[in-house]
Structures are given as C-alpha cells and as structure tokens.
C-alpha cells in the first residue's frame, strides 16, 4: 500500500505561495506514487480541511508554512516535516523525499 502524506500549506500573505506549495507537493507525491491530501490555510481561509481520521491514517505530515499552523493540536504525536513554502516551490521532490525518509 502506498504511503499516505497529509500536508498543510500557509504563507504570510496567503495569496500565492500557499497555493503553489500545495500544487507542487501534490505534483511530486503523485509522481512518486504516494497518496497525499493538502490543506491550504490562505487568504480564503482553511480549504480542503484534513479530518482527524485522515491525519491519524497518515504516515507523515508536511507543514510547508511561513507562519503558524492553525489548530496544530490535530497533528500531535505525528512524524512531521516542517519546511518553508519557498523551499517547496523551489524543490517539491526534495520535500516529499525528506518526508518519506521520516517514515523509514
């Protein structure tokens, strides 16, 4: 079974990087054959919200954020990779690889 990733993206203005980072994580997770769901916390509020059961079922969490994650309690005890949105925009593959490494 393919590994499951859940991610949260959030940037300062909440306009561009939140959504670019989300797309790049999805793009490279798909390329490498992992399941992924990405919650965006941007100017439009929280979208594609992760349910507790989705978080519980995930092998690893990626926070691609330049600001605080909203409702961080949901992720307590999970293996978590924290990176900036720019890093993910620049190199989505590396973020996915680093996250998967945490599960090994």
């Amino acid at each position, binding site marked *: 079974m393919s590994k499951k990733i859940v991610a949260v993206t959030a940037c*300062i*203005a909440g*306009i*561009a*990087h*939140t*959504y*670019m980072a*989300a*797309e*790049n994580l999805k*793009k490279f997770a798909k390329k490498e054959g992992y399941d992924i769901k990405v919650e*965006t916390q*941007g*100017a*439009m*509020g929280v979208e594609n919200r992760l349910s507790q059961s989705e978080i519980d079922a995930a092998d690893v969490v990626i926070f691609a954020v*330049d600001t605080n994650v909203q409702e961080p309690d949901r992720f307590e005890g999970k293996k978590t990779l924290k990176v900036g949105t*720019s890093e993910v*925009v*620049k190199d*989505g593959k590396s973020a996915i690889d680093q996250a998967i490494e945490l599960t090994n």
Partner: protein
Amino acid sequence: MSNKLSDFISENNVVMNLHAKDQKDAIHQLALILQENGSVSDAEAFYQDVLHRESLTTTGIGNNIAIPHGKSASVIQSTMLFAKNTEPLEWHSLDGSKVNIIFLMAVSPKAKGDDHLRMLAKLSGKLMDDEFVDSIKSAETTTEVLRILKN
C-alpha cells in the same frame, strides 16, 4: 459558480512589451497600469506595499518567473497583470534565474474568499504546472497569452 480566469482577465491585464530597467521599475510601471485600469486607487501606495512584500522574501519563483504581490488598501478590486519584459531582470530568484515573466497580483484586504482571490490562488497553483509554464513563456502575442490564461 465559475471562477475561471476568463471571467476576470482581458487585454487590459496583459502587457507584452514592458521595457523596465530593473525590478522596481517593472513593479512601478505595472502599478501605474493597474491605476489606469481602475484596479488600484493609488499606484504609489500600492507600489510601496508590493515592495514591502518583496523585502520579506523574493517572489522570483524560478524558471524566469516572478509573482510580485501586494495586499493593499489601495486595491479597489483584486486582480492581476501579466507582463513580459523585453530584458531579463535581476529578481533574486529561488533558482538564481533572471525574470522576464511577471505576474503582478493585487489583492484588496477586504476581499475574503471572493472569486477574484480564488482566481489568483488557482493561477498560483497553475504556475507549478510545467506545460502551463512552457506555453506562457513561449507566447508572443496578447491573444496567445489570453488564450492560455483562459484555457
């Protein structure tokens, strides 16, 4: 509900032959165009807000593309401008590349989750799509750019 780019973008949002000499000049010229278009009430204030955002981290996302943006009280209606500069400009990009493709995004702080904001979010996501990026980079006319943006 439709939130396609086509609902918001016209030839007024495309600047094919920008002749800016550097990053600041580019943002300044485009701010003036937004003011002419009636999207921004005060080009100078908007310009300063975009420069402030630029000072936090670069908006040069690599691949010769930059997405300067400002959430600014001077924005009347959230919108964007697409511009192609004749010369590549230094932008401190993530990959070190110089920039000739500029997407300037103007966001009204009052706009919470409106269609225009959603359009900008969708456009941002599309910039991670290699095919979209390749086609927008090779577009040479306003018509072509509009066709790609609206597709």
